[in-house]
């Protein structure tokens, strides 16, 4: 392994950094990232390495009649060409929950871009050119594109002979999972309503668009195993899926996390992991694979596009009576995280409101569209867009202020969710709305204030110079959302942390080793802060994440600070107990407080809770190293009942509210978001700077979904039409407004330090707030995101 260059390194923060929890300490990897030295998974290099390339299907649905690799194999510089026939074991599929995804296509491709063959060559261009010489004979099949074509009597089945654990309760084999929720009596409650509002809403397919492409390096090992350096969200989940396909025991697939260039859900599923390992084991050489942006659009799952039908009723005095909804999520060709997305969409479909009488149904379809799975917000994003549009329409019908109407119906601690689960920690929904509304509004027509001539950079259309204010109208919109934190529905959602405390060069040093995927969120920063807080040290080393330590679970579901943070805290506490045991053995005869007082570790010393110093940590430890690896779990959840949806399914809830101010050029349909203010309850901000960064980043992804981001899939062929950053637009710094953030800290007593998972909630309400503002500016209904210029101009 000595030949691998640019591998992950330990991150050490030295003693000039004091920072425990609650302080905005700086990232331990910040300098490496700012100097270009941080090793991302696409930066790896090995002497004598080959480059892997994937041949993908140009069709969304086709039979593979034959594959001829002979010409590709003859190319100079090509070391291997692999197809389905080369898979080494009987395990030829993988998947997060349902193992329905072929490692390489067998006889049939089910979506545009499905992997068909692999090439390893000595130059990436050689590999690409060789792949182009693989002759695949396809016979196109009719495509399943939506609910009607998926559930038609003669619909082609995406996965005939399904026997997964959802296949028994779905109403059609092209439905991955179905979750109804019934609580109270919606029909009876409906009769009490003075106004009833119903509508259909649609959410387009959003891409995570993380900047670091799928990539990694697989190095064959002398013991027949393989060392894999990889960017992922969950090392152990990858390992569980990779090892059986390779026919290796898990201990022979040693995985190390490389630098991860963002994730946002798009790295929950495998991409090139198994492919690189197969090529490395076949050729006996290290193999690097790096997708380009075009391939990346096919290399990971996307956010489920959704069609949502909602009906709400309310009394004249503004109280919600009932809600009925039906949410249809397009899961695409393979299951990925669809079942869990269905669970979220259904259980959070009512939003952060009190409604006792509900009828809910959510399903995910199998189609020939691109596979969809995890993306930040995970089912709750789609629902939030629809229920918040409904709230504005109800408020308008009742002639009530949209914020006041929401506050009238806002849930609070003690509210019972449609699943029957009481919300047993703070739920300051009305307060968040109050705060976001109380922020000062940006000045009107700020493009005029700059001087005599308008600064077009502040106007819709920007430097395209399409208006100097003519036809520009302003709108303000509000939204609020609810997201669950952690893995739900009975999942054993644990994490593992190994913590070591020892004296190095006369100073106590803590080492934290977890398998947590640092994808940019700042988990490594927080782990160091927790270790300092719990162990009273300043010097903390964060080891690279790998599979030599137990699972940390996924960096998703806003869960890592809660769960792996909780595991680090727990292991630190256990280490502290060992320190105090040693201290008592050595020193209790010198001071009675060793036996009687509550003892803490602070500033490198053992102190009483009264602040009296009992001993120096260095003297307690001497040559001893305390080293503990422990698992930690949050309180358990339970599955939702398959018929009623009842169950204590979620760990924690997270809330954010947004106010959007937009200016719209109504003649051209161009939108400029002027400001996007957010108020969020974070329980406890372990690192305030990072918390605000998460909120602003999530808010911006929601803005993207509101006005620009969509993977366009041809409805006739199910082929992706815009797999590039030229045609799939994400917000630039010019598209992104000022994002003032008001952070509320109401502790959740069930969580470590009272913290609340924060990463996803801001992605929910951002989108509907922006669209509400556009509606207010234009008077248009706008039931679909992203809102495009033609939706505004009607052309």
């Amino acid at each position: 392994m000595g030949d691998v260059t640019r591998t992950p390194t330990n991150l050490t923060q030295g003693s000039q950094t004091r920072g425990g929890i609650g302080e905005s300490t700086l990232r331990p990897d910040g300098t490496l990232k700012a100097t270009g030295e941080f090793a991302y998974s696409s930066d790896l290099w090995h002497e004598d390495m080959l480059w892997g390339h994937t041949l993908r299907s140009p069709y969304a649905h086709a039979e593979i009649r034959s594959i001829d690799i002979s010409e590709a194999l003859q190319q100079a510089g090509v070391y291997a060409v692999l197809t389905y026939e080369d898979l080494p074991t009987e395990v030829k599929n993988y998947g997060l929950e349902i193992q329905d995804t072929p490692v390489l296509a067998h006889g049939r491709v089910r979506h545009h871009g499905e992997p068909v063959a692999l090439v390893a060559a000595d130059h990436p261009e050689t590999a690409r050119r060789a792949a182009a010489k693989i002759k695949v004979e396809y016979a196109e099949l009719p495509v399943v594109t939506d609910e009607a074509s998926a559930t038609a009597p003669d619909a082609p089945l995406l996965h005939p002979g399904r026997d997964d654990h959802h296949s028994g309760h779905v109403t059609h084999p092209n439905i991955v999972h179905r979750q109804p929720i019934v609580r109270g009596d919606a029909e009876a409650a409906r009769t009490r309503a003075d106004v009833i509002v119903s509508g259909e809403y649609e959410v387009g397919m959003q891409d995570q668009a993380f900047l670091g492409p799928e990539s990694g390096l697989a190095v064959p090992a002398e013991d027949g195993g393989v060392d894999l350096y990889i960017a992922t969200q969950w090392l152990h989940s990858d390992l569980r899926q990779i090892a059986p396909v390779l026919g290796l025991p898990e201990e022979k697939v040693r995985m190390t996390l490389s630098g991860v260039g963002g994730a946002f859900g798009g790295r929950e599923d495998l991409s090139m992991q198994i492919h690189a390992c197969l090529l490395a084991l076949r050729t006996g050489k290290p193999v690097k694979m790096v997708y380009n942006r075009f391939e990346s659009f096919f290399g990971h799952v996307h956010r489920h596009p959704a069609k949502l039908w909602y009906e709400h009723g309310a009394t004249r005095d503004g109280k919600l009576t009932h809600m009925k909804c039906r949410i249809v999520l397009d899961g695409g060709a393979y299951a990925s995280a669809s079942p869990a997305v269905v669970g979220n969409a259904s259980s959070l479909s009512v939003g952060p409101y009190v409604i006792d009488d509900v009828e809910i149904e959510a399903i995910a379809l199998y189609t020939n569209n691109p596979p969809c799975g995890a993306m930040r917000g995970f089912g709750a994003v789609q629902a939030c867009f629809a229920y918040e549009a409904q709230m504005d329409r109800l408020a308008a019908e009742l002639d009530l202020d949209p914020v006041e109407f929401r506050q009238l119906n806002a849930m609070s601690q003690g509210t019972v969710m449609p699943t029957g689960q009481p919300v047993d920690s703070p739920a300051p929904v009305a307060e968040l709305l109050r705060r976001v509304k109380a922020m000062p509004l940006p000045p009107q027509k700020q493009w005029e204030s700059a001087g005599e001539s308008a600064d077009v950079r502040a106007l819709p259309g920007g430097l395209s110079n399409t208006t100097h204010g003519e036809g520009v109208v302003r709108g303000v919109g509000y939204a609020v959302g609810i997201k669950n934190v952690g893995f739900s529905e009975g999942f054993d959602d644990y994490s593992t942390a190994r913590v070591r405390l020892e004296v190095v060069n006369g100073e106590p040093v803590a080492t934290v080793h977890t398998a947590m995927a640092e994808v940019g969120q700042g988990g490594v920063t927080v782990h160091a802060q927790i270790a300092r807080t719990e162990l009273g040290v300043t010097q903390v080393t964060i080891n690279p994440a790998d599979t030599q330590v137990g699972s940390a679970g996924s960096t998703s579901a806003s869960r890592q600070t809660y769960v792996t943070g909780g595991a680090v805290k727990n292991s630190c506490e256990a280490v502290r107990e060992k320190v105090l045991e040693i201290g008592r053995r050595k020193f209790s005869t010198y001071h009675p407080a060793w036996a009687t007082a509550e003892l803490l570790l602070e500033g490198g010393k053992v102190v009483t809770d009264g602040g009296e110093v009992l001993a120096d940590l260095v003297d307690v430890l001497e040559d001893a190293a305390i080293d503990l690896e422990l698992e930690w779990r949050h309180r358990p959840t339970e599955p939702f009942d398959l018929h009623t949806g009842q169950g204590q399914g979620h760990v924690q809830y997270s809330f954010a509210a947004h106010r959007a101010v937009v200016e719209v050029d109504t003649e051209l349909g161009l939108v400029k978001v002027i400001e996007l203010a957010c108020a969020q309850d974070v329980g406890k901000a372990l690192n305030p700077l990072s918390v605000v960064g998460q909120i602003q980043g999530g808010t911006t992804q929601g803005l993207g979904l509101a006005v620009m981001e969509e993977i366009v899939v041809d409805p006739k062929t199910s082929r992706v039409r815009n797999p590039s950053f030229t045609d799939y637009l994400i917000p630039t710094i010019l598209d992104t407004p000022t994002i003032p953030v008001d952070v509320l800290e109401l502790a959740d007593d069930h969580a470590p330090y009272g913290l609340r998972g924060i990463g996803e909630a801001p992605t929910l309400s951002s989108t509907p707030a922006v669209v509400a503002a556009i509606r207010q500016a234009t008077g248009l209904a706008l039931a679909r995101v992203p809102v495009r210029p033609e939706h505004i101009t009607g052309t």
Partner: protein
Amino acid sequence: MRVNFTVNGRPHEADDVWEGESLLYVLRERLGLPGSKNACEQGECGSCTVRLDGVPVCSCLVAAGQVEGREVVTVEGLADYAKQRAESGGCASGACGNGGTSVGDAQRWQAEPAGTDSQTGEQGELAPIQQAFIDAGAVQCGFCTPGLLVAADELLERNAEPTDADIREALSGNLCRCTGYEKILDAVRLAAARGEAATAGQGA
């Protein structure tokens, strides 16, 4: 083919370069300088931004053969570049006010050995813009950071007191997916303010 050019003040010779290779590929895979990032390789994201004879370019769109005999600065050389600039009077290799660095100035510049200690993550010499990005929390996943640093450094070189609109315009070719850009704006404002303070200090 063989390409001779200067990177961060040091002459380099790249052999066996295939004609279709980009400057980005040669930097990353042949010269061992992977700081410039490969997020889109189609000129849309700016994560591969380097300076070519002083001008910020997407290195993924520059054919390797085009850089023959020319001067490239990457994120790996940014600290030395900024140091040299400061030593020549807080100005872009003596070229401030003329809209950037002249080719001649760019080619006269020489790098010092890198001073960053990659093990501590806290020491070593950084360009002011690098320090400002770290201090302001502008780095999350960090994949956009190298390109943004090169672009922001070039902005401050030609405009020491940019307005927010100036910053947004100058950085509009650099995509970031993590931060929502607010902390990046903060970082550039911070670097500008520190630069101003330093200049004022010199004057006093």
